[in-house]
């Protein structure tokens, strides 16, 4: 499936800001055989005084943008053409959950793909006993790792209500979980904490979802904004798989990935703000238009 992606995020500042520095992660990434980027560009307004494009630890492309002078407003927009292919078939080759730990120990590496980065606490997802207990209830000892991941995702989707108004980007996952509602970011963080709680390495994926559903299918939740889902480690052979707890499905051709990290803080679309006395406001618009019919 080919897509045209249009996104704009506008920030306005109450009182004019001093120098600004942002790290922006908005461009779709290239995944051989899965996601091919035909064209992608990022435009920041006003034109930044400095611009550097780096690859971060997890392999995401990160644009460092710097403004030397005060600006009352900044806007980021992207335009991209991406082809999303059907990846390998989801044949379950994962180990039984009970023996995942052995494979984990055998993986002696600090490489960005190593599962070890995704098991301990991360800035936005510390250990949360309520989510661990929830995950334990959702799985059985006979589950394979893949089945366990799916079971936790299903259970969360059953339990949690999608509510675009209920939480903000700063709401801690524990609060969203307690109230059993939230947006895709909350769903993802809660699932990450739940999976880590039962020993499954899990991370956060940032990206887009197609805005217009295929004919006869319902519109997906969260399609009018940027989206987030989960990647989980299903053992040495299967590696990383991606699951979307908000829509209760594995991430297929409806999903366009930007990047991943341990949680939101590693792949936030726009990091950093202007040095400014007052508050700021932001507005986001996204369109992900399928080009094939």
């Amino acid at each position, binding site marked *: 499936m080919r897509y045209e992606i249009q996104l704009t995020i506008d920030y306005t500042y109450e009182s004019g800001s*001093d*120098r600004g*520095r942002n*790290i922006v992660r908005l461009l779709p990434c290239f995944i051989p055989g899965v996601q091919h980027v035909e064209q992608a560009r990022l435009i920041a307004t006003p034109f930044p005084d*400095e611009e*550097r494009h*780096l690859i*971060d*630890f*997890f392999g995401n492309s990160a644009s*460092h943008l*710097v403004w*030397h002078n005060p600006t009352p407003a900044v806007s980021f927009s992207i335009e991209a053409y991406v082809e999303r292919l059907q990846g390998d078939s989801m044949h379950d080759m994962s180990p039984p959950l009970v023996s995942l730990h052995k494979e*984990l120990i055998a*993986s*002696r*590496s*600090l*490489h960005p793909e*190593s599962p*070890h*980065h995704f*098991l*301990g*606490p991360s*800035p936005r997802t510390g250990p949360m006993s309520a989510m661990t207990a929830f995950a334990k209830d959702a799985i059985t000892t006979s589950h394979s790792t893949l089945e366990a991941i799916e079971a936790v995702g299903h259970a969360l989707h059953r339990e949690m209500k999608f509510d675009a108004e209920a939480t903000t980007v700063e709401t801690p996952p524990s609060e969203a979980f307690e109230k059993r509602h939230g947006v895709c970011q909350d769903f993802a963080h809660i699932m990450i904490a739940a999976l880590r709680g039962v020993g499954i390495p899990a991370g956060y994926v940032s990206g887009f979802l197609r805005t217009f559903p295929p004919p006869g299918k319902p519109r997906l939740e969260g399609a009018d904004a940027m989206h987030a889902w989960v990647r989980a480690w299903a053992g040495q052979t299967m590696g990383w798989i991606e699951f979307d707890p908000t829509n209760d499905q594995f991430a297929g051709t409806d999903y366009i990935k930007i990047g991943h990290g341990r949680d939101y*803080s590693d792949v936030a679309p726009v*990091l*950093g703000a202007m040095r400014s006395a007052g508050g700021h406001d932001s507005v986001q618009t996204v369109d992900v238009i399928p080009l094939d019919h």
Partner: protein
Amino acid sequence: MSQDINTDGLREDLFGSYRVTPGVADELFDAKGNMRPVWARFVHRFQHLSTYEIRTRFERGDQYLRDAGVFFRQYSTAPLQERAWPLSHLPVILHETEWTTICAGLSQRADLLEQVMADLYGAGQLVSGNHLPAELIAGSHHWLRPMVGVTPRGGHYLHYLAFEIGRAPDGRWFVLGDRTQAPSGAGFALENRMATGRIFPERFPRAHMHKLSNFLNAFREQIESLAQGAGGSPAQPALLTPGPSNEAYYEHTYIARYLGIPLLEGEDLLVEGGRAMVRTIDGPKPLGALWRRIDASFADPLELDAQSHIGTPGLMEAVRQGNLSMVNALGSGILEMRAMMAFLPRISEVLTGAPLALPNIATWWCGGAPQRDYVRKNADRMMIGSAFAVDLPFDLDATTALGGEFRDGAQRPIADWLEEEGASLVGQEAVTLSTTPAWEEGAQGDHLVARPMTVRIFATRTAQGWQFMPGGYARIGRSPDATALGMQRGGSVADVWVVSDKPLDQKSEPKRPHRRFRRPEDSLLPARAADNLYWMGRYIERSEDALRLFRAYHLRLATTDNPADPRLRQLNQYLKGYGHNLTQAVPDSLIERLEAARGCAAKVRDRFSTDGWNALNDLLSTSQRMSRSAVPGDDAARAMSVLLRKMTGFSGLVHENMYRFSGWRFLSFGRALERADTLASILSYFAGPGAPQGSLDLSVELADSVITHQRRYRVETNRDTVMDLLALDVNNPRALAFLIHRMHELARALPNAERHGRPSQLVRHLLKMETECTICMPEDITPEWMTRVRHNIIAVSDDLTAAYLR
């Protein structure tokens, strides 16, 4: 139970209570109970002092520390509480031969740590080769992912280290902890040495001790060479502090001043074009090296810990682009992780082919089944705690188990804990530290007691290898319990003397090449420091103005004894408008102003003389004391006079002793501006057209110009004489014209006072005001004229702020 010691020839009153525990090494007595030769001569001399003399000498040391303003910040109690430096007056004495052996071992260890650091942020072979568990590194928030693949400028990660070492029962030294993140204490070591110099000033022992200063000279050279940019472009080093609320802030100010490098906070910096710069009153200036005293993850809220309020966005990028050296490299905190101790002995063999010359505290990571079993079986002689913690072993917290019991008395069996959370736990052999003499004041007289101790050794990289500070710093326990060493727990700190048998010929110490004298440029002034100096000037003046007003009020109250007196009412009403409550003899509002002035001074202590700082503190504490006792009327008036004299003392110190660098100009500008504003306000209120009888006299009195007025005009006050003297006279230091002229002069001496042949906006503004005062006649001064002056004063403050203070 205690071991026999040979106390022949020792004074019973001093040594009668000194107990050496069997199975514990002692610094003073060897294993056979005989005094160690390195102590003998010192003890012999010490014994000849009377107890009275000993106390007097100790008091002299404490007095030095108080005068020097040495304190450390105590956490957890009332906000920003400061505590006197807890000096244990007796030194720890070590022989230079033993010291050399220790340093050789630490040198090997420092090189090893550098190699581990390079691997953890480079090839990662220690993990892939199964010498370090991946989960420990990846699970620690001190391992900073943005640093992976970044090679530090100059090639080295570590430049300045500290090691906490202790002596085991068998007499050998071992390492309790590596301090690689931002080791503190070197400044305190210097102060320890200064204080013990007051206590034991004689040629013996002083001539036998190795000096501490060479070490800091070597370190200064190291950071200066690190600061040199590519192609030798000029850039300077600086010290980055978390700010006044940090427990070691005093040390930061002290050592920055000692090394002659600027003391900066995160908001003083910005990163532009991949270079770290200081925001100065003269625009951004490049920095080449930062001796950071903040944890690495706080250094950059953009790429590291987003919660940090003490960092600078972009610092990581300056490091990545190779434009900024960090002492030590960001991410060095990973080496402090407790679990690291479990693997270092093996890593040493793997990387260098040699065992550690100086062992570290025996440590087992409970993630491995055999180690976990071992810890469980030996739990009664273990400290069990977080594998990821970076505290020293004796800084136990509530979730640490010692000797098979939880510190907080939790009910859970240790075995279950190990089984469930083993991968995040380590067991460390319970420490048995050596004891050393400490002075104890007791009901039965003062005497020496044996207390546990650890020694902290500082190391700096030099072109010739690692160099160590010879002594200076030991921690002494408050009780025989080895876990009561931390200062936050009431432990104390002692000087460490590394001594030679013969007097050291100080001349034979390595001499540095003599550099040709060059008068240095004015050091750069960070905008934030200038801002604090400016506001300190304003708050000081605001306090002084209030003091004068209060004195006038209470004098009048004392002479009329009639609160309904119209002039008293007028004064009262005026003061109320500024938030002063005159039912209090020393209003809270005055103390708040002085506190604000002190708060500003505290942020620029590195630029402030100790005398000035003490004078300011004295002013504040005197007013606090007076506020508890003074009563309105005559008593309060006298109190105000005392405070005014103290205020004048402080101003004199600033005026007579402070070097005329830019900082002084901002301080003076603040005072002049505030004084002008108060004066304009007083003239508007008390010398306006409708002011009641006698209020003209009052304004002259408030401006401290009564005698001048009598001498110059020889008539009763009238509006014209008052306006002439207090508004338009350029020779009266308490006249608007004088103050505006003063601000004008100061503004002209600031950087960029003129650009492209044109005066700056600030200078233009002041020039206009000055001219207006010059051409104005007393009768021209209307209330509107005065209002315009006050508006202009505010505008001048805004100009100054916009041009220099952000």
